């Protein structure tokens, strides 16, 4: 093994064993999402109107594998429904080998009363695109918007630039805390690749999983959370009337809490709250910016509570590399990625899609694996997708609307520039 391959791992584990935050700086770094988030999700806020932090989606949580994660939830009650004594919780959806105590299911643990705070404790689990939501009366609290995004970035991002990813992945098997071997564990999802390779940690970008072959490389990542609102249900709840569940019928279809064209409005949206002042309500636009020739990872989740939702890509092929926060790889180490033009998710599902704007990749030095960091022309012919605006939209055509208004709903733009 190259010396760095194991050291990075040891150092990382030592971090949490001795509780020494923070963590090694990211190599390369992802520019898009942190900058989107930092400007307008104020983590000092507490829930002030009715959804988590008064934001839809709720605050985004991006962790690195092996991080210790403390999350304190305070229940401040609701200005608009002072008659309700609703508890709230956080369910970290998909956490492998979860403890029921921190799983957020009120029946199986404790639920947080108004005026109380509770701190959840997790060790960031296996890399992947998860999500989180309240688990009190889920058909109501999820419909009302208590949903958020959560993903975990792999150890592979911390491999020193130039170090073999295959060796670094192999080093993880030397420690029981990070090992993943198909023969030993039927729930191991990212065994060593079937064949060795010469791919090294790139100087740019990041990886979706501990793939060991660089195949989940991306330049930018975008979380996209699908959601639906039934305005009748919300109105009924707001006006002190009884809510029905069976006839729930969503009329607004949301990506990151917004419907088209708001999905392509830069910056946060704000709305007037019960205190008469404007507050940020929907922090995340869903504009997918990809420099021509680069790759974007879409972390797509669906938290609609009534229907399956389909999202299609017009013009840029979708390569599905992960499903339900797990790398798509068989026990022999073969990648089971597939290319498609649409994906369909039920409530409580997530997947990882790569949009690649390069039509033909060169291979890495000394190997046959594609080099995802480079997209040179072939002779005088460019290999990049033509610059311009492409679309992500739902082919559930009745979901391309904002209630009675046509031309809206579950749609956003992919801007290749």
């Amino acid at each position, binding site marked *: 093994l190259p010396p760095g391959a194991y050291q990075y791992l040891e150092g990382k584990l030592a971090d949490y064993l001795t509780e020494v935050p923070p963590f090694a700086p990211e190599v390369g770094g992802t520019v898009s999402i942190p900058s989107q988030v930092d400007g307008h999700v104020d983590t000092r806020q507490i829930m002030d109107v009715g959804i988590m932090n008064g934001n839809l989606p709720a605050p985004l949580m991006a962790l690195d594998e092996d991080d210790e994660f403390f999350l304190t939830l305070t229940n401040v009650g609701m200005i608009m429904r002072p008659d309700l004594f609703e508890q709230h919780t956080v369910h970290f959806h998909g956490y492998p080998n979860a403890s029921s105590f921190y799983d957020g299911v*009120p029946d*199986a643990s*404790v639920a947080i009363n108004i005026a109380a705070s509770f701190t959840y*404790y997790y*060790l960031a689990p296996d890399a992947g695109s998860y999500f989180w939501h309240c688990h009190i009366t889920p058909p109501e609290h999820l419909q009302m918007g208590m949903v958020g995004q959560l993903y975990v970035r792999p150890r592979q991002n911390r491999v020193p630039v130039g170090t073999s990813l295959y060796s670094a992945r192999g080093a993880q098997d030397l420690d029981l805390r990070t090992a993943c071997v198909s023969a030993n564990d039927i729930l191991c999802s990212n065994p060593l690749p079937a064949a060795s390779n010469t791919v090294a940690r790139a100087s740019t970008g990041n990886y979706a999983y501990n793939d060991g072959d660089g195949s989940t490389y991306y330049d930018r990542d975008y979380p996209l959370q699908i959601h639906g609102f039934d305005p009748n249900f919300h109105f009924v709840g707001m006006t002190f009337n009884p809510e029905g569940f069976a006839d729930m019928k969503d009329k607004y279809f949301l990506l990151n809490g917004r419907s088209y064209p708001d999905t392509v409005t830069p910056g946060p949206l704000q709305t007037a709250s019960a205190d008469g002042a404007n507050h940020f309500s929907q922090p995340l636009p869903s504009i997918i910016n990809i420099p021509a020739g680069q790759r974007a990872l879409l972390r797509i989740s669906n938290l609609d*509570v009534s229907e399956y939702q389909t999202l299609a890509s017009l013009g840029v092929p979708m390569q599905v590399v992960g499903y*339900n926060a797990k790398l798509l790889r068989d026990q022999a180490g073969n990648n089971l990625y597939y290319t498609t033009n649409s994906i369909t998710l039920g*409530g409580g599902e997530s997947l990882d899609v790569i949009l690649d704007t390069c039509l033909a990749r060169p291979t890495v030095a000394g190997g046959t694996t594609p080099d995802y960091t480079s997209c040179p022309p072939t002779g005088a012919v460019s290999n990049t997708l033509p610059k311009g605006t492409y679309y992500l939209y739902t082919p559930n055509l009745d979901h391309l609307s904002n209630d009675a208004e046509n031309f809206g709903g579950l749609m956003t733009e992919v801007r290749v520039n």
Partner: protein
Amino acid sequence: MSTPIHQATSMKRLLPCVVAGAALWLTTAGHAAAPGISDTTGTAGTFNLTASPASITQPDGQAVYSWGYGCTVGSTPNFVPTSITTTPTCTTMQIPGPTLIVTEGQTVTVTLTNNLPTAAGNTSILFPGFTLTSTCPAGQQGLLTCEAPPGGSVTYTFTASTPGTRAYYSGTQGDLQVEMGLYGAIIVLPNTVPVGCAAPGTIPTGSPTDPLSVKNLAAEAFHGEADFRLAGSAYDHPRTCYDREYLFQFSEMDPNIHSQALAQVNAANCTAGSNTCRLEVPTEPYHPTYFMINGRSMPDLMDTNYAVQYPHQPYNGNPHMHPGELTLLRIIGQGRWQHPFHEHGNHVRILARDGNLILSSPVPTDPNLAGPLLFTTTTTPGQAMDGIFYWTGKGLNWDIYAHNPLSTQPATAPVHAACNPDANGYNTDDPTAINYFEWCQDHNKPLQVAPFGDVPSGGPATLPDPNLFTNGAWFGGSPYLGPDATVRAVGPTGTTPPSGTIANPPTSEAGLAFMWHSHNEREITTNNIFPGGMLMMMLVDSREFLIDESN
């Protein structure tokens, strides 16, 4: 308040009471297994079934007129697994229909008698995934398969060619007949026991060199648990060994269709020469209000198999397991909708779809599985899947087992609360240990900043004052697994005031409860009442707690 409170709202506000009521029912609740029948005649694989009407019950008190398959009057069903000792039943009508359990290579013969109301017309059964070898009598061939006329019968014969879980359901006017309840499951067991798996009934000795699945069975046997498996493996493949199994069939029900069917049955004139002996029940628009697993809604779902209060809904959904046990989930979509079934606690490795094992290559001896790992297993109408789930608590960074030298061991076991990691990091060298299958990398790592009973201090978290929170009916009383750790940490009542929970008591079970439910969340309601519908609690129980699936 002048406005009458609607049922849904009032039930929601009364939720703690509702859940407490469910918990009371559960004091005698048994666990689940995958019960069924191997024949009705004394000849394995030969079944005499009847389709007939009856009412099924739902937890909101409604009785819903339905049609279902059952055992023909006078038949003598053999029930499996035989370790289910509660008096099993197979009435003339049940939903889902009897689970037919046969062995790979067996000839299966199903004779169906049509005792539906005459106005309902013909009925039939489809067995997708099998090739019928029976011939159809003249005049009985329907659109999709051979049919039984009112009062008549039809016989289907096929070879159970490959192992796996599959659906069966009516092939006649399915939009109505499947909605009314004419569906069930057929399980084909492999005819070999793969290397590393143990056949049911063979009690392994638990040598340290045994495969893990075998050691798990040795631990079960040491603690006096019966073996409730149907077979040693799900398929003829060594990576499909399992230690427990559960069958879940998902369906939904629009009660308006059922009441219209009943009204038309009652109004039909089936005397000779009448032209009104027929049903014209509209099945669209479709507004289901009941969302069921195994024909029951929560909380009825978690009651025992064959409970007398549900004579036409014999199968439950109440999974339990110990840490590390490979638990086989047989999941079928019946009805007409998809349901995103979310398993809290861990992922599921999908082994197969509709009885087709998913391997890395088409070679049947390929050692590697290729099915996905899912935390939400979407059910699709007519489609079955098999998957393996387990829970170990690996990677939490605190000792959820919380055993120490003070831990109470079973009387016959050596005192042993150390953690000796095997090649995978689990304590599996001694199947009699109270902390068998503990994840050793976190052994003795405290959770709490402060001391917690005799659990030491120095951890990352501060646990809350339980009086400030609402405690769930399935909260075992502490963050820890099992009564030993819970009682040592917080005393005999757990942290649940005033005297502990009934569904999962601190002193006897104190398991870790996980909700398994549809994540199209409106489906965890029963006729607009929350909680209900497609929802059950799965419990991971400490090794010393005896999981009894005999009822």
